[in-house]
């Protein structure tokens, strides 16, 4: 198992290096206006612009810039914001914003996990019956329709129906409910769909014949064999759901005015704050890669067979 985890760890590191390098190189292709901050492009003459760029180290040879970039990153320095809050350290901005995103993200993940898994179990047990069809209908709608559509309708109608606040307010606990709920919808669909699929897979496995021949009740078979085994591959879906939560946070935080990282990204993009966009893109990638690695580790812990075939290519 440790060899498998080690291998996955190195792959994650490799991915991280690739992502950092690509992000860095791509960001150098950006129009240089993004670096002049609130002074604006018009007020500065060419020599002033040149001075700013040199100051930022952008006139150094590319490989020197890259080395600087890496050594700064290693020190936890993501650079300064250019336009959003000029000359404020991005690390500091993120420190203020991250707790909101983490709190809402984790609570929506937990909520989705409980609801989605139970929904998947029920759908598998009631396969092809009404409950399954209703569940499938929900899954299809959620997965097919772009999330913004139902986020908008949640904000539009559910706030009225349940008399909940339209926008986020740190001092108003009820203002957490809708964003958390909305952010969970997609993951509920995902968990339910995969849990149903894995349960149905397990239900067709040969070992159940022996379990039945032993005289185990269907209930016991469901709980201690089928659902238990189906949960193991579900771990693979965890990283995807973390990514989905990040994607959702970009919409939700800006819709409900939550002062988190997702909303910050939208602001940074609209203000063309190159450094901030770069830092946030990197942060999100790290979370995504970390999630994948976490999934691999959990998988190795849960599936006793994994140490045997760790050499298989791809996932």
């Amino acid at each position: 198992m440790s060899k498998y985890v080690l291998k996955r760890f190195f792959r994650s590191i490799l991915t991280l290096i690739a992502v950092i390098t690509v992000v860095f190189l791509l960001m150098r292709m950006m129009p240089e206006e993004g670096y002049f901050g609130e002074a604006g492009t018009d007020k500065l003459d060419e020599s002033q612009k040149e001075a700013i760029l040199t100051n930022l180290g952008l006139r150094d040879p590319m490989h020197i810039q890259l080395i600087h970039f890496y050594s700064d990153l290693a020190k936890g320095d993501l650079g300064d914001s250019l336009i959003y809050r000029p000359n404020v350290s991005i690390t500091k901005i993120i420190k203020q914003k991250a707790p909101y995103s983490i709190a809402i993200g984790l609570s929506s993940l937990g909520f989705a996990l409980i609801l989605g898994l139970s929904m998947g179990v029920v759908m598998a047990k009631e396969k092809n019956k009404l409950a399954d069809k209703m569940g499938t209908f929900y899954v299809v709608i959620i997965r097919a329709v772009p999330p913004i559509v139902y986020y908008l309708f949640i904000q539009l109608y559910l706030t009225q129906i349940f008399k909940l606040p339209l926008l986020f307010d740190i001092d108003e606990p009820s203002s957490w409910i809708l964003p958390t709920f909305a952010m969970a919808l997609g993951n509920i669909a995902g968990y339910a769909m995969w849990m149903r699929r894995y349960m149905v897979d397990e239900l067709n496995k040969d070992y159940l014949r022996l379990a039945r021949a032993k005289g185990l009740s269907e209930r016991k078979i469901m709980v201690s064999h089928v659902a238990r085994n189906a949960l193991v591959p579900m771990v693979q879906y965890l990283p995807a759901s973390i990514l989905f939560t990040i994607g959702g946070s970009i919409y939700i935080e800006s819709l409900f005015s939550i002062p988190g990282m997702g909303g910050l990204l939208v602001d940074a993009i609209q203000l063309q704050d190159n450094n901030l966009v770069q830092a946030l893109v990197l942060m999100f990638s790290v979370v995504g890669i970390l999630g994948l690695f976490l999934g691999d580790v959990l998988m190795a812990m849960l599936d006793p067979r994994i140490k045997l075939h760790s050499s298989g290519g791809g996932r």
Partner: protein
Amino acid sequence: MASDVKTEKIDKSLFKFAEYDSRNAELIGYSNYSYWRSTLQVFFKNKTAVILLSVVVLLLLFTVVQPYLPNQHSPIKINVDADGLQLRNLPPSSEYWFGTNSIGQDIWSRIWSGTRTSLFIGLTVGIIELIVGIFVGSIWGYVRKLDPIITEIYNIITNIPTTIILILIAYILEPGILTIIIAMSVTRWTSMARFVRNLVIIIRDREYNLASRCLGTPLHRIASKNLLPYLVSVIMLRLALAIPLAIGSEVFLTYIGIGLPVDIPSLGNLINEGRMFIMTPSLRYQLLFPTAVLSIITISFYVMGNAFGDASDPKNHM
């Protein structure tokens, strides 16, 4: 019961040998399985999928034909009244079926124009995915030496969150249709490549194909009988799913401000415009109509693609 038969009078002439035809022996257990027929059978059994297939076909036809129908407005023309004033925020009427937007453009024709844009993006991404995927996948599977390298590259690319790549590329490049196509295509080819690679390896190593080759079956026959069905079904599935994905990506990028510029009518732009009126009940039609059409399109393609994917999976051909 047994004794009844024994005491019963049976015509003695029946106790002579019957003619034996070895072909009869073979005939009885014959199964006439055909992959494509079974696929269609399974598909057409799924009533929802059949209805949505008709919806998709009609939608496709309609989006193409719509501009040439009588009484259609231009999606970008700003309509004015006799005094030259913009016909802003007109509610749905017989003239402007879905009303007009805040600068007097016809929402009905903008929806279909946006749908055309999205369909174009989706199909283009799908075709790029196909070409790149099949090309890379074939090399990946065929050249054994490259396998570990491409596998590692694949693992790294699939490790990077797609949304992040989408945002990054759209942020760096000029906003436009081409940018969205590039941003989507950069990661999407990987799963097709992996699929093709596995197919190539199957044709090389899987026992039934080995057996088939030992019996002298020509390669093209193995490919067309054992591989093509899988390939075609996956192509259909991915093409169908590329369209809801293209719509979703465009809407997402437009929402965060790096999608299509406002002068190109698109579903994302329509939703963004409609979003402004979320607090004005009388103008909500500007949000409701585009989202309704968009939902019908994405759901139809999604369900149809999956139904075809299921139907073409031989495991479901029971």
